[in-house]
């Protein structure tokens, strides 16, 4: 199975000292992260898109372009591209450019995103939330598959024999759909025959039905089951010992979640322990191997990507966790999953 990492480029003040890294230093550190992951032989690095103060990446295409120039093997993707509020033509052009620079290593993962800041920012209406994504993902796939496109929709001006240039380096630039748990999104990915990514805060069990929906929607749309692909992900933290991993990670994890209404006062330790026990991937290398294998067993995923940075988790801890992932977890997982699973 393929293994990789993703990050939103968190830029959060340290909960105790209140210090915040400079945007400049943070971006350079991201590019270093890509170099390290590339050298360590991971298959993919993906970047989120946010338009909030606590994240440094609002333009993942630009950061991926820089990463393309200093890496050699690793695939460069997003997690996710908030397609609803972008122009698919521009998205395709940018990723085709990254694909050319990197010699065919670019991917797009389109999604609706967990936040909605980009709607007012780019002049879109939340009332069109569903329709915007639906229309734009279809257009993006058209652009990916055809150099000259004639298209008509409701929310974007029509294209009449428009030339889409440059073309990607790969014959078909991979376009994934990221799904957060909404059944309709899994149906859409299946119906369009795109690969599907699912992220989990806790165990992968709730994904079982989403994968089933995905495969059934794909079958009824006539897509070849062999062409379908799935991936899973979620927060990832590894330390030498199980207890150390929990203790090191908890304060930053709790602080990170204060941005969500249900944890406005921080995540209680019992909740954290409950999440870890029920599948949040935090632990020793062996525990992490077992947990990722559960994703594989339950969902039949072809790829796992771990969210390696969160909130103000310090760079040293991120790097140590990444090193364990690449050197102790990944080799075992590759060996154990060398045979393709039968998705259930």
């Amino acid at each position, binding site marked *: 199975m393929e293994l990789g990492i993703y990050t939103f480029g968190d830029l959060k003040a340290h909960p105790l000292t209140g210090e915040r890294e400079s945007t400049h230093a943070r971006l350079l550190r991201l590019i270093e992260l890509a170099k390290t992951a590339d050298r360590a032989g991971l298959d993919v690095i993906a970047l989120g898109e946010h338009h909030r103060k606590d994240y440094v990446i609002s333009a993942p295409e630009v950061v991926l372009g820089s990463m393309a120039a200093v890496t050699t093997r690793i695939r460069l993707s997003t997690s996710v591209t908030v397609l609803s509020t972008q122009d698919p033509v521009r998205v395709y052009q940018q990723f085709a450019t990254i694909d050319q620079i990197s010699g065919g290593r670019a991917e797009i993962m389109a999604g609706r995103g*967990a*936040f*909605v800041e980009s*709607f*007012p920012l780019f002049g879109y209406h*939340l*009332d069109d939330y569903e329709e915007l994504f639906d229309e734009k993902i279809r257009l993006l796939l058209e652009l990916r598959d055809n150099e000259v496109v004639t298209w008509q929709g409701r929310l974007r001006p029509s294209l009449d024999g428009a030339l889409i240039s440059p073309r990607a380096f790969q014959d078909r630039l991979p376009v994934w759909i990221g799904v957060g*748990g*909404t*059944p*309709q999104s899994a*149906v859409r990915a299946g119906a369009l025959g795109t690969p599907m990514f699912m992220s989990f*805060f*806790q165990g992968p*069990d*709730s994904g079982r*039905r989403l994968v*089933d*929906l995905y495969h*059934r*929607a794909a079958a*009824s749309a006539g897509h070849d089951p062999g062409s379908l692909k799935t991936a899973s992900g979620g927060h990832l933290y590894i330390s030498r010992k199980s207890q150390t991993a929990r203790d090191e990670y908890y304060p930053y994890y709790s602080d990170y979640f*204060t*941005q*969500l*209404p*249900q*944890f*406005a*006062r921080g995540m209680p330790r019992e*909740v954290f322990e*409950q999440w870890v026990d*029920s599948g949040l991937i935090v632990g020793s290398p062996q525990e992490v191997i077992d947990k990722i294998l559960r994703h594989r067993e339950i969902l039949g995923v072809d790829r796992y990507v771990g969210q390696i940075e969160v909130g103000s988790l310090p760079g040293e801890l991120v790097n140590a966790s990444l090193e364990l992932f690449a050197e102790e977890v990944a080799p075992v997982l590759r060996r154990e999953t060398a045979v393709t699973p039968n998705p259930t």
Partner: protein
Amino acid sequence: MSGGERIERTIGILGAGKLGTVLARLATAAGYRVLIAGSGAVDRIALIVEVMAPDAIATTAEGVVAEADVVILAAPLGKVRSLPLDALSGAGAIVVDATNYWWPVDGILPDFEQAELSSSEIVRNLMPGARLVKTFNHMGYHELDTEARPAGHPDRKALAIASDDPTALMIVAEVVDAMGFDTIDAGALAEGVRFEPGTSAFGATASRVALLTMLEAGDSPAVARGRMSR
């Protein structure tokens, strides 16, 4: 969940998303007849219902309201005005409000920025004839899915419940119990503020005793609502 004897009641669910499909599964497991609808035509959700809640019946929103004894609102609050409000109000239906003012997805909804009313009171004012009960809103869909337990189970979790209509509250409490959770009567609908986003009870997957303590913490989101770091 409770014993398996068939309860002759039809539960309707408006919303076939993350929450709606989990509630449909819990309600069918409890032995209820369950009708579920999305915002559009039946064929849009047929496959979803077949996979996510195979014993529930996919129909339209109007169909749900016409037939159900208890209607659960499981659509985003931003879509509340697209619900069949007149039918909900006119029939004097028992309506369970499982929604939250969830700014990360709903954006800013001016209607729900009024800090002096609980979000469920604002919903009730949109369907004045309905007998509105607030519950299910403060636990995540993943927890609702995995934490349902039969009555008396030592690990059973609790849900807060509030209403201005004591009979409706009792009926819904019975439904919640059959679906696998204890309830704590938090009082009138106005008390719903004690388990809205921003309170300690919100997001809690806790036993009756633990939830009671959180509800009594007395924090209200009046400060938090509409003003959290966003």
